[in-house]
């Protein structure tokens, strides 16, 4: 990992020196080893840049604000993050001319919650060794298979293609296992309505309305969210009625439908571990099945599915009939 970090820093330095950008948007050490946070680096501070198994944060959303500033910023993008940036560029949210996008390799990020669930307590640091993650803890060393600690979203990684980056950093990575990212959605669809209802009631009732999912989501980048706007009729700071958190999550998924790149940040940051990506992914699956494959951010010219139509689109009733056959 250190080797890759060095390669990134070296290339970033070259780019800064060549004048391609004036600063770097990357990850800085957090309070703990497992929570590196987004940060902006000048050339002199590049040695503080972190890139390891926990640098999961998608930096594309920060480009909205960064690109408004003077000068060009070099942003480090993992493959999945690059789609978010491309989508933001498509929506004119990011001034692309102020961005230099460097695609960096990623072999999946780690989920500290999974490590804790596997008994890692009092962790002080970690390192990676041949597909294993070694935690240095107060109580000694714990070794776990990397595969077992991958973030939910990385378990069904979409691949290593980048969208709309200026250059990519070549780096050899092990082969990516092929996984079906719609498996869980399909499994839910298979259940009875009662089972699904029970599942979602259980999940959504955990929501504390902290808005982390919204604040981290690159697609949820409205100047002002409808849920914060007293004029919208749905504004609320807390879920005052039982219905409200489901309304919040349905509408949130709805507002990003056709724009969500499936980056999985919402589920990653949810303090209550609600599988929010399953809502977004449901829309993605429906769109793919009903209107043809669509990947937000992939094609700058493609019309997003919800601002598009064909006269032959299926009727709403047809969709509901689908499951019944």
């Amino acid at each position, binding site marked *: 990992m250190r080797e890759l970090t060095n390669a990134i820093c070296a290339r970033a330095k070259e780019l800064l020196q060549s004048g391609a950008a004036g600063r770097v948007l990357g990850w800085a050490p957090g309070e703990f080893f497992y929570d590196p946070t987004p940060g902006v680096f000048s050339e002199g501070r590049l040695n503080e840049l972190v890139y390891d198994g926990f640098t999961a944060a998608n930096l594309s959303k920060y480009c909205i604000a960064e690109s408004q500033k003077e000068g060009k910023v070099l942003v480090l993008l993992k493959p999945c993050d690059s789609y978010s940036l491309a989508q933001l560029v498509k929506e004119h949210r990011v001034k692309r001319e102020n961005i230099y996008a460097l695609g960096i390799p990623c072999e999946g990020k780690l989920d500290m919650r999974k490590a804790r669930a596997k008994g890692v307590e009092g962790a002080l640091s970690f390192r990676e060794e041949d597909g294993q993650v070694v935690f240095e803890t107060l109580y000694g060393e714990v070794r776990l298979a990397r595969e077992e600690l991958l973030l939910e979203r990385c378990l069904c990684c979409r691949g290593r293609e980048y969208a709309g980056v200026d250059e990519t950093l070549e780096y050899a990575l092990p082969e990516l296992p092929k996984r079906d990212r719609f498996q869980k*959605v399909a499994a*839910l*669809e298979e259940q009875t*309505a*009662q*089972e*699904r*209802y*029970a*599942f*979602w*009631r259980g999940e*959504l*009732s955990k929501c504390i309305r902290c808005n982390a999912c919204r604040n981290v989501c690159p697609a949820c980048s409205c100047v002002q969210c*409808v849920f914060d706007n007293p004029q919208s*009729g*749905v504004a609320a700071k807390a*879920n005052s*009625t*039982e*219905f*409200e*958190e*489901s*309304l919040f999550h*349905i*509408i949130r*998924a*709805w507002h990003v*439908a056709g724009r969500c790149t499936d980056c999985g940040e919402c589920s990653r940051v949810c303090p209550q571990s609600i599988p929010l990506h399953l*809502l977004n992914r*449901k*829309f993605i699956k*429906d*769109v793919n099945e*009903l*209107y043809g494959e669509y990947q937000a951010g992939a094609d700058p010219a493609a019309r997003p*599915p*919800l*601002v*598009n*139509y*064909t*006269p032959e*689109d*299926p*009727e*709403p*009733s*047809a*969709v*509901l009939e689908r*499951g019944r056959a």
Partner: protein
Amino acid sequence: MPLNTSAPAQTGEYRPLIVAFCCNWCSYAGADLAGSSRLTYPADVKIIRVPCSCRVNPLFVLKAFERGADGVILCGCHPGDCHYTTGNYYTRRRMTLLFSMLDYLGIERERTRVEWVSAAEGAKFSATMNDFARTIRALGENRKLRDLRCGN
């Protein structure tokens, strides 16, 4: 002065509350025609006029459920006949996805519906509303959308 029609009427019979969004050019006129042709449908159905079915935000549908509606139906011009040329095509996609999502959350799919009713289809309007009201009566009161967290 409670007039909420989803409360039982004098007979004690369950009366659902149904909100129907009708586009001004086709379906609202279709409802007018049903009226002038004296084609009855239950008083449970309350119509809200919108310029085009594409004006209906999913928020309105969810809001209606939140406030106690037992069924929500959207009516617009037949695809291809939209007064604004393309509005109902967007409606179709939006509602398809929204209904699919509600179904995914385990909410009875029969509570929502989209029907295309032209200005000439008074009979269809009435038949549609009768059918929808029957379906909703059979389903009973909407609890799930009002109360997704705690349930009962």
